């Protein structure tokens, strides 16, 4: 959102065609002995007095440096350029007080604060009307005979620090292992409490621990967790966890009090004598799925092995089951153990067999003979042993089940909680703010350095995103804000210095409304206002994102497993398909039918993605036959388009955006994403969708200049841009015309013909005069559609949006729809010219499919048949061919369902 300038005169003054501006500079000069003395400099002739301070006119012609800020196009942390100021250095201009360069005798300007502000002069302006452009710290101050220059660096970046800040030291931890010195204390977030040996078969997800005392065997998973649970050791050579049976938790630390461990070893494979088909259900760790063992069935399985990790205390075969059965446990060189069981059964091996020399568990065979109706859910070896601890000499990695960082006001230097007291922070935005605010291991920013007013709104944009992770190694600010898949970008977040000098966080949401409207007629400047009419040149430049930014095959690795040291899950968006053809959808049957298909032969699987042209993405639910598959919409809230017949593609990871991108750009380029923060599949899919939308298409970029009317804007704001140098498809295009005159307060636009049906709720509409001497085309009003009234042929709207003015409009005036929005990624204030230069990147569309794309040969609405008009109330760009391959080309909506 734009700067909040409520209560200032800026909103009124910035839009005026004539205004007065004074640029103000304050240099807070400092000397350790004499303290501070502020130098006030202004651009007004002679002097400008405000609030008792006199700002002297000492700036050289064109002596105000340009302020320049930008954010990486995909998100991340903003950059702010250095700023320079040139002052007159001639003695008598300083009123006899000496030259400005003489200040260097009296003050140490290095890192002194400097503020560059502007104010609109009305005669009644106050200090509250000051708008800060730049604040920073002085770096260099060279001078010559006539000029004293100051260069300053933006100060906000200096508030960023590497995290975690809390590291080990020998003062607190006198027996710190040698290789653990100056190591970050782990900092855990989210739910790292999926314990091994759970009955759901889920991969363990625990917080890594750091040994802080090698003699006391003392560990911590972090000082700031909400809960501390069961610790485990992980044996990398075996791939198993060992539950630490005896431990003492004191605060955020625990000690390991004995070498006793519990572990479970799953069985490995079915033996040749096995005749139970579902035997895999018995070794998958999921106790809710099992294998039915009927009378005389043989469930014969072999155990896994395990390297010798210590001394066996107990060893048993555990059978989770219902019903009765007989069993035989075999091991080469040992007497069989036989018996019968009913329900859950535990069979002691250690009392019968010797494991003192070898842990040859791979020789164990478990033979279950069915005696009736039994269901076996799981079989595993349960082992208790004394670990051959080596302590700090060669420690096994230790983990703990925790719920991570707890939101407490006491955690921060000042201010309240980030989200809600006592909750564990898992939202990416909350985690990022915690990075900044935490007093112990974060960047310790006081609340005054954080813009908090918008946090709730931004959090809501990614309310279902979950991060569960632990920071165990240092992350630098550059890592944090790396424009190529840095942590900030993984939350779709932009982090930048707001006009009030605070860090501001913004989550990208393509559906966000614009806050400003720029058109070549109204407020996009020409290069030279003095140029003759036939020699004018616009400042707008249009270009596209680099070819190198195009990616159309994506894989995101997530589910980081600290114990294994690898990612365990991935999601893929791919342009590759297994089959293609032409099929017909049946909503009642839930099927796609292609008489020419060979789905079974082509090995189409349940779960494969199926995209139908001019329709939507489906998921294969079943392969009924060679020519019929059952499908359901990928978006569970959507419906099958009954009767729609069109081209389709099916593949394991088929993504239509990726496919279309390969066709358009004749290249395939993979983007690999890795996230240690994400464990949740939905979050991974959401992030994948964000990258797919952003990178499969080249985006239009615009750079243009406008006046001080744009001083309220900032990076990440969405704007609308209309200019003849933009491709036609990127410009607002006429939806229809007004069917009658309206005044400046009417909220229902009467439209000629079926124009009202072409609008949708939340559309951005622009009312523009048909050119007349009284109201030439440069005048416009932006309105937002709130709904349509097809019965009366009206579009309901809210008036005078994005700073435009409500006007009276005539019958025949045009109503345009703006589909393309741009996100500001560069904001420069050019003080000498009192201009703002904006760089903006096209955002993905709010919707790329409304209901159905119009068929390829359909032209404009007024050129189509009555039947087509009845079927499709649609809109196409005025000068482009219909092409369903191009989302910019044609969009269509179905006419309303008959009552």
């Amino acid at each position, binding site marked *: 959102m734009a700067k909040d300038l409520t209560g200032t005169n800026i909103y009124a003054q910035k839009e005026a065609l004539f205004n007065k*501006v*004074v640029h103000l500079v304050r240099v807070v000069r400092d000397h350790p002995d004499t303290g501070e003395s502020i130098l006030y400099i202004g651009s*007004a002739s002679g002097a400008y007095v405000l609030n008792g301070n006199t700002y002297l006119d000492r700036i050289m012609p064109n002596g105000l440096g340009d302020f320049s800020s930008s954010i990486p196009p995909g998100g991340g942390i903003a950059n702010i350029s250095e700023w320079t100021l040139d002052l007159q250095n001639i003695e008598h201009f300083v009123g006899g007080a000496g030259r400005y360069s003489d200040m260097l005798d009296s003050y140490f300007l290095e890192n002194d604060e400097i503020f560059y502000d502007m104010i609109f002069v009305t005669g009644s302006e106050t200090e509250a009307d000051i708008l800060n452009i730049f604040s920073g710290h002085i770096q260099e101050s060279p001078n010559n005979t006539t000029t004293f220059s100051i260069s300053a660096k933006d100060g906000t970046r200096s508030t960023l620090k590497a995290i975690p800040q809390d590291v080990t030291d020998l003062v607190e931890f006198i027996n710190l292992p040698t290789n653990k010195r100056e190591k970050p204390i782990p900092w855990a977030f989210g739910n790292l409490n999926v314990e091994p040996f759970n009955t759901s078969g889920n991969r363990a997800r625990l917080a890594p621990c750091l040994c802080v005392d090698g003699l006391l065997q003392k560990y911590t998973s972090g000082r700031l967790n909400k809960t501390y649970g069961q610790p485990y050791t992980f044996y990398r050579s075996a791939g198993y966890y060992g539950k630490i049976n005896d431990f003492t938790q004191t605060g955020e630390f625990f000690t390991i009090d004995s070498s006793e461990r519990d572990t479970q070893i799953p069985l490995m494979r079915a033996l040749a004598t096995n005749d139970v088909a579902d035997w895999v259900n018995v070794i998958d760790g999921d106790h809710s799925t099992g294998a039915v063992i009927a009378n005389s069935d043989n469930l014969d399985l072999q155990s896994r092995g395990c390297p010798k990790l210590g001394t066996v205390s107990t060893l048993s075969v555990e059978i989770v089951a219902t019903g009765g059965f007989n069993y035989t446990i075999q091991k080469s060189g040992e007497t069989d153990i036989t018996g019968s069981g009913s329900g859950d059964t535990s069979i002691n091996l250690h009392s019968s067999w010797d494991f003192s020399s070898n842990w040859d568990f791979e020789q164990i065979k478990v033979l279950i003979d069915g005696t009736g109706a039994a269901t076996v859910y799981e079989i595993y070896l349960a082992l208790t042993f004394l670990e051959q601890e080596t302590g700090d000499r060669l420690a096994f990695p230790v983990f703990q089940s925790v719920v991570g960082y707890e939101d407490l006001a006491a955690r921060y230097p000042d201010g309240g909680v980030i989200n809600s007291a006592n909750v564990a922070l898992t939202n990416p935005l909350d985690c990022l703010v915690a990075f900044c605010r935490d007093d112990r291991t974060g960047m310790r920013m006081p609340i005054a350095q954080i813009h908090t007013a918008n946090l709730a709104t931004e959090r809501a944009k990614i309310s279902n995103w979950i991060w569960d992770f632990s920071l165990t190694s240092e992350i630098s600010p550059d890592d944090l804000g790396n424009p190529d898949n840095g942590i900030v970008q993984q939350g779709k977040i932009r982090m930048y210095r707001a006009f009030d000098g605070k860090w501001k966080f913004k989550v990208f949401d393509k559906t966000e409304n614009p806050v400003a409207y720029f058109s070549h007629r109204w407020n996009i400047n020409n290069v030279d206002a003095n140029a003759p009419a036939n020699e004018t040149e616009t400042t707008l430049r249009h270009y596209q994102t680099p070819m190198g930014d195009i990616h159309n095959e994506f894989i995101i690795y997530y589910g980081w497993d600290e114990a294994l040291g690898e990612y365990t899950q991935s999601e893929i968006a791919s342009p590759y398909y297994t089959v293609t053809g032409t099929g017909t959808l049946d909503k009642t049957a839930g099927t796609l039918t292609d008489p020419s298909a060979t789905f079974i032969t082509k090995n189409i699987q349940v779960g494969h993605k199926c995209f139908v042209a001019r329709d939507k993405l489906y998921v294969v639910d079943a392969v009924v036959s060679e020519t019929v598959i059952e499908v359901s919409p990928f978006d569970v809230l959507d419906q099958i388009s009954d009767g729609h017949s069109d081209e389709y593609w099916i593949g394991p990871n088929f993504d239509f955006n990726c496919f279309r991108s390969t066709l358009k750009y004749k290249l395939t380029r993979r983007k690999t994403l890795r996230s240690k923060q994400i464990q949740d599949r939905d979050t991974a899919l959401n992030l994948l969708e964000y990258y797919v939308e952003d990178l499969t298409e080249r985006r239009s970029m615009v750079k243009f200049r406008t006046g*001080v009317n744009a001083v309220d804007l900032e990076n990440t704001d969405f704007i609308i841009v209309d200019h003849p140098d933009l491709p036609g498809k990127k410009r607002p295009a006429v939806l229809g015309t007004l069917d009658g005159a309206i005044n400046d307060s009417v909220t229902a636009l009467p439209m000629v013909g079926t124009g009202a049906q072409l609008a949708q709720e939340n559309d951005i509409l622009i009312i523009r005069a048909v050119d007349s001497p009284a109201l030439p085309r440069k005048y416009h009003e932006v309105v937002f559609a709130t709904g349509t009234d097809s019965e009366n042929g009206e579009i309901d709207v809210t008036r005078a949006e994005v700073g435009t003015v409500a006007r009276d409009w005539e019958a025949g005036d045009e109503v345009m729809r703006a589909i393309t929005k741009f996100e500001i990624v560069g904001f420069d204030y050019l003080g000498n010219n*009192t201009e703002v230069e904006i760089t903006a990147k096209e955002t993905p569309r709010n919707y790329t499919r409304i209901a159905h794309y119009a068929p390829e040969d359909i032209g404009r609405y007024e050129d189509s048949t009555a039947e087509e008009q009845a079927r499709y109330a649609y809109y196409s760009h005025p000068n482009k061919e219909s092409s369903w391959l191009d989302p910019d080309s044609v969009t269509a909506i179905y006419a309303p369902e008959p009552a």
Partner: protein
Amino acid sequence: MITLKVDVSTLVTLKDPLWSDYGQAEAPRQNRSESGGGVIRVTELGDPGNVISMGFRDVEQADYEALRDFIKDDMQYSGVTFTFTDSFGDDHTGMLYWSGLETWKPGKGGRWRGQLVIKRNLGA
């Protein structure tokens, strides 16, 4: 007659100029921008200045020398502000010598001709 006066006792007078350009007032410092549709926005940054240009002819040598010496010694060229009283008797304070002395030349009969440009210091 016109008068250039640093203080009550430090001044020089000269015959009325042949021509003078008071309308060559320096426009206020304004940035003007124009959109493609001809919408002009003006942001004013400073007060209007005042540049006065004058042309003289048939000036007696003694008067020229008095003017020259005044500019050199009393005004120190652009070093000292002065009050300019124009042909209409109006005072313009805070003026500085800007240029023109280099244009003076003797003409027929030993009389001098030349120009004078003076400019108001907005900071005075």
